């Protein structure tokens, strides 16, 4: 029995020499880091720190430190991560604290824990005086001593390390005779576990769990604990800190301009622009005009933009702010007050000498195509054959505010529209500033997502969020500001709504206040969030909190793909493959290409998979998606609805058509393994596309993922036709074409057509939606049609083929 006296230097040295190589290497690394930590230039502590709250991805860390987290995950092996996870669990959820731990002491204690158990097996007790102390407790004593002596160490962290060390070594003693066997043993256990058939049963449930958790996650977001209050990140903005002077005699100017605008109401585009140019020149602005023509779905959109530039008295024309007031808003209403107030503001702004950025006032004839032409031309990315270049330009656009004010009389509050084309959003600071000025300085209400009178309860928050997601998912332009956002110009539209006591001057002051804030900017808005879901004008959910829900749904496809890959290589599936291969060879005498299966040496550990046919089908389906994409973007609008209905009808028979075609052209019907592989590749691609998409357009990825969730559980049911046709019918309901039809029906009913006119109304709505999609594709550059036809539809097609497939199961049973 060892006792304290028997410790001497020789033993310590031999002990050091007997340490396993890895331990020695780790000690060397630790010392190296300790030395490196002494120099101040390179902050290792920050790099390696494990801070529980920052690990939970609820923070902005995702945006800023995604790379670091990934590299951490790559570099750290399970030895660190297991105790680290336990530590995080204890510290965050049990104790509710948030302490950062770092350093290699975790490893030290882990190894000490392992060593302690090993010593305990050989020498159970340490005799100190008359007391028999179990040797396995020594690491615990050490942890206590270290805690007492060394300041700033984490007792819990060390305990977690020791605990893991104990766990790693707590096995029968004979297995622990040599430490270097422990790791292979662990691996062997994992390997045997890998073969456990029960493991293959798990993934479908896991995948279902992913979907359920993903949806539940989204539904939890409106709760108070998962969202945060908005705040102004950019210090330079100082919203609402300046006195606004717009008002007084400007009221008379406004009435005069409104009179002018009224006189132009029924004139054509050119006459209007002539008159507007006159007004601008009288105020003292430089004026430019731009012609544009767009063709889409057989329609031509043509017109002329007029815009004016106020050169900044204190600037050098390197930066500019834009004020947009379209002649007509997105609904086609005459923006009477909006244009008048923009002209008044222009005249008012000219009188001030404090502008450090140019101010550009754009008056496009409509809010959809015209402003897109202007923004494209401003950034020189227009198609010069149909869209003219801008004769005069200013500097980099720092922000844009659009006024949409067809409303007559006094108003109650402003509706802030912020969704951009393709679901991109402006920086949250801009929205916050306008909210701040409107609520704090003007005493106006402000709303988002058409939710007037927001009760700030769960229901209203959820509705607001879902409307925001819908707009983001559709990716269409909801106001003249939308076209600015793809160019990374933060922009919003202000719409006065309701009946209240605020007059036009109030809106003018709001715009003035916003422009003063933007004028303060020293650099482009970048501080605050670009990815967020607003659930109320002053509460938001950041990307770290909401992204997991879409990612979980995308991951469910990947899990199933991996499962199917494993399954397709399992013996139960491969045996019939081989049997059928040989049989078909005997009968058909077709020897090309497949010999290698029969010639396979019986010794190969994994089963060879026949991947070419499934891979070919999946790739062909994805290329086939270009066909509907082309058709629906190049058909004249009056033919769109009939074409779509015909395509939907055909779509029902596509899967069986493909299945028949494959079965009749290939040498033998598809085997079960090939069906597994077919679905595996298709789901792998779907999961991949959706997870990439989720980083660009969360809502679209979520919606597509959710509707195609049944594809995860599609499988051939060769022996139960009811199940087969039932599931095929379910997939038909979840197909992209049905989704568009159902969407059109819902939209039509929300517009209020009913009874006999319903069918005609549905057709009109369908045509409207499809031509809108074509318009978006041609003018705004929407990529949503590509997602629908080249990602979603092919995945659906392959999924339906798999469900309808009838691989020969009898052979499987005989084998």
């Amino acid at each position, binding site marked *: 029995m060892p006792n304290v006296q028997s410790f001497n230097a020789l033993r310590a040295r031999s002990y050091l020499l007997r340490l396993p190589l890895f331990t020695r290497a780790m000690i060397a690394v630790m010392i190296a880091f300790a030395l490196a930590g002494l120099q101040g230039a390179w902050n290792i502590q920050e790099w390696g720190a494990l801070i529980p709250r920052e690990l939970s991805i609820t923070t902005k860390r995702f945006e800023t430190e995604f*790379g670091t987290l990934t590299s951490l995950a790559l570099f750290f092996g399970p030895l660190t991560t297991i105790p680290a996870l336990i530590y995080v669990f204890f510290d965050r959820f049990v104790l509710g604290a948030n302490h950062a731990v770092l350093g290699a002491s975790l490893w030290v204690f882990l190894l000490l824990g392992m060593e302690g158990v090993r010593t305990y097996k050989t020498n159970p007790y340490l005799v100190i005086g008359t007391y028999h102390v179990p040797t396995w407790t020594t690491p615990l004593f050490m942890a206590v001593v270290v805690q007492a002596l060394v300041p700033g160490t984490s007792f819990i962290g060390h305990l977690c390390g020791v605990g893991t060390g104990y766990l790693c070594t707590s096995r029968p003693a004979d297995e622990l005779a040599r430490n270097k066997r422990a790791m292979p043993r662990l691996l062997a256990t994992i*390997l045997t576990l890998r073969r456990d058939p029960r493991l293959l049963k798990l993934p479908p449930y896991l995948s279902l769990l992913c979907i359920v958790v993903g949806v539940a996650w989204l539904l939890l977001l409106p709760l108070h604990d998962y969202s945060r209050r908005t705040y102004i990140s950019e210090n330079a903005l100082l919203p609402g800190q300046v006195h606004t002077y717009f008002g007084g005699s400007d009221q008379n100017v406004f009435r005069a301009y409104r009179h002018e605008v009224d006189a132009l109401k029924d004139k054509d585009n050119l006459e209007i622009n002539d008159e507007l140019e006159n007004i601008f020149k009288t105020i003292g602005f430089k004026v430019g005009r731009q012609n544009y023509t767009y063709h889409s779905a057989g329609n031509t959109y043509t017109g002329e933009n007029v815009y004016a530039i106020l050169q900044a008295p204190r600037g050098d024309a390197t930066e500019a702010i834009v004020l947009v007031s379209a002649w007509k808003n997105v609904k086609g209403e005459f923006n009477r007050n909006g244009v008048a107030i923009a002209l008044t503001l222009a005249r008012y702004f000219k009188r001030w000498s404090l502008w450090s950025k140019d101010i550009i006032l754009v008056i496009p004839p409509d809010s959809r195509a015209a402003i897109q032409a202007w923004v494209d031309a401003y950034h020189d990315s227009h198609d010069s054959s149909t869209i003219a270049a801008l004769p005069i330009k200013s500097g980099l656009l720092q922000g844009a505010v659009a006024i949409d004010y067809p409303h007559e009389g006094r108003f109650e509050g402003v509706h802030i529209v912020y969704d951009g084309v393709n679901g991109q959003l402006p920086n949250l600071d801009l929205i916050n500033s306008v909210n701040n000025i409107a609520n704090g300085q003007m005493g106006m209400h402000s709303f988002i997502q058409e939710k007037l009178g927001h009760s700030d309860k769960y229901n209203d928050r959820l509705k607001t969020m879902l409307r925001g997601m819908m707009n983001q998912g559709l990716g269409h332009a909801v106001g003249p500001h939308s076209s600015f956002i793809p160019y990374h110009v933060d922009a919003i539209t202000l719409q006065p709504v309701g009946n209240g006591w605020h007059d036009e001057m109030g809106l003018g002051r709001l715009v003035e206040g916003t422009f003063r804030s933007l004028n303060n900017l020293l650099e482009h808005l970048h501080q605050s969030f670009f990815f967020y879901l607003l659930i109320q004008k002053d509460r938001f959910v950041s990307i770290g909190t909401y992204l997991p829900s879409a990612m979980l749904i995308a991951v469910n496809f990947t899990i199933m793909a991996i499962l199917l890959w494993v399954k397709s290589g399992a013996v139960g599936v491969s045996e019939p493959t081989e049997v059928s291969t040989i049989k078909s060879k005997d009968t058909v005498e077709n020897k090309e290409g497949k010999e290698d299966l029969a010639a396979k040496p019986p010794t190969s550990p994994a089963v060879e998979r026949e991947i070419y046919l499934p891979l070919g089908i999946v790739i062909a389906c994805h290329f086939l998606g270009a066909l509907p994409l082309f058709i629906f973007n190049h058909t004249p609008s009056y033919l769109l609805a009939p074409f779509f209905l015909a395509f939907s009808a055909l779509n029902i028979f596509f899967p069986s058509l493909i299945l028949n075609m494959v079965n009749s052209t290939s040498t033998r019907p598809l085997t079960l393994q090939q069906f597994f592989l077919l679905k595996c590749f298709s789901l792998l691609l779907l999961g991949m596309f959706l997870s990439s998409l989720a980083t660009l357009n969360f809502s679209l990825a979520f919606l597509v993922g959710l509707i195609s969730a049944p594809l995860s559980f599609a499988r051939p049911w060769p022996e139960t036709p009811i199940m087969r046709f039932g599931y095929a019918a379910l997939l038909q309901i979840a197909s992209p074409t049905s989704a568009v039809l159902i969407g059109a029906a819902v939209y039509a009913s929300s517009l209020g057509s009913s009874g006999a006119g319903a069918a005609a109304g549905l057709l009109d709505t369908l045509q409207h939606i499809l031509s809108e999609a074509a318009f978006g594709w041609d003018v705004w550059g929407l990529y949503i049609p590509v997602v629908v036809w080249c990602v979603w539809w092919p995945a659906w097609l392959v999924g339906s083929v798999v469900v309808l497939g009838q691989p020969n199961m009898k052979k499987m049973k005989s084998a």
Partner: protein
Amino acid sequence: MGFHDTAGLYGAAAALRLALFTFFPALPDLLTSRVEVSTPVTSFKRLQEGLFLYSHNVSPYDGGVYHQAPLLLPLFSLLPNASMYPFFTYLVYIVVDIATADALYQIAESGEAAASKLFTSARKDRRWSGYVVAAIFLFNPFTIATCLGRPTNVFTTCAILHAVAKAISGHPLTSMLALSFASYLSMYPVLLLPPLLLLAYDRQNATNRVDSLVQFSLTAVLAVVACLSTLFTISYLLTGSWEFFASTYGIQLTLTDLTPNVGLWWYFFIEMFDSFRSFFLGVFWLHLSSYVGGLSIRVRSQPLAAITILLGIFSIFKPYPSIADISLSLAVVPLFRHVFPLMRYTFFAASTILYSAFLGPAFYYLWIYAGSGNANFFYAITLVWSLGQSLLVSDLTFAILRDEWEVERPEMAGKEIRQI
């Protein structure tokens, strides 16, 4: 083994590329400006800049944009202006792709991968014909994207594969010549010299074979040195100064241009303090070249395997890698069809590469265009991309070694092995 077998395949590949060039006229320029396709040392745009300076009698290396070999300039100045008559440039790149595929065809047909002089695999019957291997190369999306993006390392790819093909067919001098060209263009292929030498030594013609390895290698190294010296002299005469050394190879050695790419170097060297820079440059280069000796010795019996693994390693750890490099490393992997059943992580590696191939452009977009992400986004994906590639390379290495081991210990074939 003749051209008429593969004429259809090459025709189809050329037709596909021509169709893409013709029907999507914006595609080549789009791809040329992508960081995944064009690196500072291979970019077609930079070549145009160098060409402009060269044709106006200014040193092409003035301005610090052009970092490619000087001899490319007279070659491209023979062609009509690429912006006005792009067709001729397209044609050159298509021809180079097909020449590369032809070299690959010869390599695959020789059967060297499964049965070299010193080693014959038990699985040697399971292999793909040259036709299939060439088709996999020609229709690989990475190869097509490379062809459309027109980086100049397609010439290097072509030269490397021809060097291998010539070495196998028993023409050591021609092989060394081809390798010299590749090294002249991109420098890193010089690291392939040891395994290529062994390959050429093993496959000499019986008529004039040299039995001593030392004598053979001395002659071959001499040939490479002579050829490179000639090329350097011509370059010197062409540009009138030795400046091109610093601007071409110097850039690769010192990584002064930190344009993002799919490799691992740029981010490290952006973050690094200047005092550590030269040390880590040394470490990174040492790391890259350290594989050569080890692999040449360990896989001595299969020099082609060593070359394949090295090409994979280069495409991960090069200072300026691009998808042209992965298209080369993926081109030679199918030669080892016989060890595919032994590979364990093909699915994982393939899906990792696939995922990162899609997430990479998305994150680059978020960083550069949308402005809502930052450099960490893209770098994280390049890490994953390299992880996928290194999985593939290490898995292939495992499979090759296991295959070799099973020949030595036939009784262990098919049994689970455990590392002791």
